[in-house]
């Protein structure tokens, strides 16, 4: 009996958090038109979440592309279809690995930074101080960070994917000797605008989800050192889980 009740209670609290987060998102969306006018604040956050994640995204993209080519080559060579390597690598990167891995890296690099920064501002009363100066922290602190993340994510995904394809080319063509012409032409013959759209669409959705979770967890953190620590952990876990679930849903919907 008590197990059932506990399950029920945790389900209710899950629903409450979900609802709270949805309302939070609604507020952010409502503030967005005026928030975009404060261009400088948003640019600053695009820098914090995007530009500062550039190196980790590029290195990860390169190696994901390289290992993909290595595995793909091994598999395709069994069917004498090494020429399909370009297609395989490009489709895997554009549709799945690019958006998903970038979102996971984003959660670890930018998401935790956002959550802990906002959480610390709360713990050190900076948010209260803003409220007392008649400045809404939702607009001044949370919104620019959210928008920065939403803008940065698709760009990060594009960079990750492009570098990944470069990595696949490096391993497939330069190291394994796949014909360069068929590598590219097969890719071009089989990748269509629909696939690019799927990747971009995913990156936008993941950008919204990952940024929302990070700023939400930061803003709702208990204003203590422990609370901020928990908020960053929750950010990573929640982002990872929801990105993977969303990924499945989008893939299924677009098939």
């Amino acid at each position: 009996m008590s197990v059932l009740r506990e399950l029920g209670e945790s389900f209710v609290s899950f629903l409450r958090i979900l609802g709270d987060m949805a309302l939070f998102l609604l507020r952010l969306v409502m503030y967005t038109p005026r928030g975009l006018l404060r261009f400088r604040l948003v640019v600053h956050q695009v820098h914090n979440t995007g530009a500062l994640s550039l190196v980790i995204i590029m290195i990860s993209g390169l190696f994901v592309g390289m290992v993909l080519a290595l595995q793909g080559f091994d598999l395709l060579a069994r069917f004498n279809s090494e020429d399909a390597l370009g297609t395989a690598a490009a489709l895997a990167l554009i549709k799945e690995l690019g958006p998903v891995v970038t979102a996971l890296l984003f959660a670890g690099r930018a998401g935790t930074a956002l959550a802990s920064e906002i959480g610390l501002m709360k713990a050190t009363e900076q948010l209260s101080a803003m409220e007392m100066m008649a400045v809404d922290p939702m607009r001044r602190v949370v919104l620019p960070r959210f928008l920065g993340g939403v803008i940065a994510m698709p760009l990060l995904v594009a960079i990750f994917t492009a570098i990944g394809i470069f990595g696949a080319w490096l391993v497939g063509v330069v190291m394994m000797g796949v014909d360069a012409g068929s590598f590219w032409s097969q890719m071009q013959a089989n990748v269509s605008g629909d696939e690019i759209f799927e990747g971009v669409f995913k990156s936008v959705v993941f950008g919204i989800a990952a940024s929302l979770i990070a700023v939400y967890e930061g803003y709702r953190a208990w204003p203590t050192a422990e609370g901020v620590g928990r908020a960053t952990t929750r950010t990573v876990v929640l982002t990872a889980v929801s990105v993977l679930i969303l990924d499945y849903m989008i893939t299924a919907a677009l098939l």
Partner: protein
Amino acid sequence: MQQTRTVELGTGLFVFLGVVALFFLTTQTTGFSGFMGGDAYRVTARFDNIGGLTTRAPVTMAGVTIGRVEAIEFDPERLNARVTMRIDGRYDQIPDDSEASILTAGLLGGQYIGLGAGGSFDNLRDGDEIYLTQSAIVLENLISRFLFQQSQEDQDD
């Protein structure tokens, strides 16, 4: 001020790289590049069976992509498939008795149209039809024919 300048520079670099990457993905990895928007002419061909041919599949000659499949329709009168190809205007000296075959790129590759050069002195022009065609080889038909032959040989023994 020094600090804001680095921020702007870093952000600028980041956005620039992102846009370049997106541009690369949309133009270099997909079949949108090349002559699709440029000068081109259309020819048609009829096939009894197109197999897995799709629109935007390449049209090649001697292995070089010279165009793409633009449309595939079923002709209810003649009960076959009518394929419209869009061929790059640069290649305007293809004999009008050339042969069009539906081929498969590798075991896992997609299907494409290969043109085999004919001997005519007249060239294909916009709106022409290629009469000599070879349909896609459907693996099931091939296998059943092979099995049929085998069993006949068995009976002959």
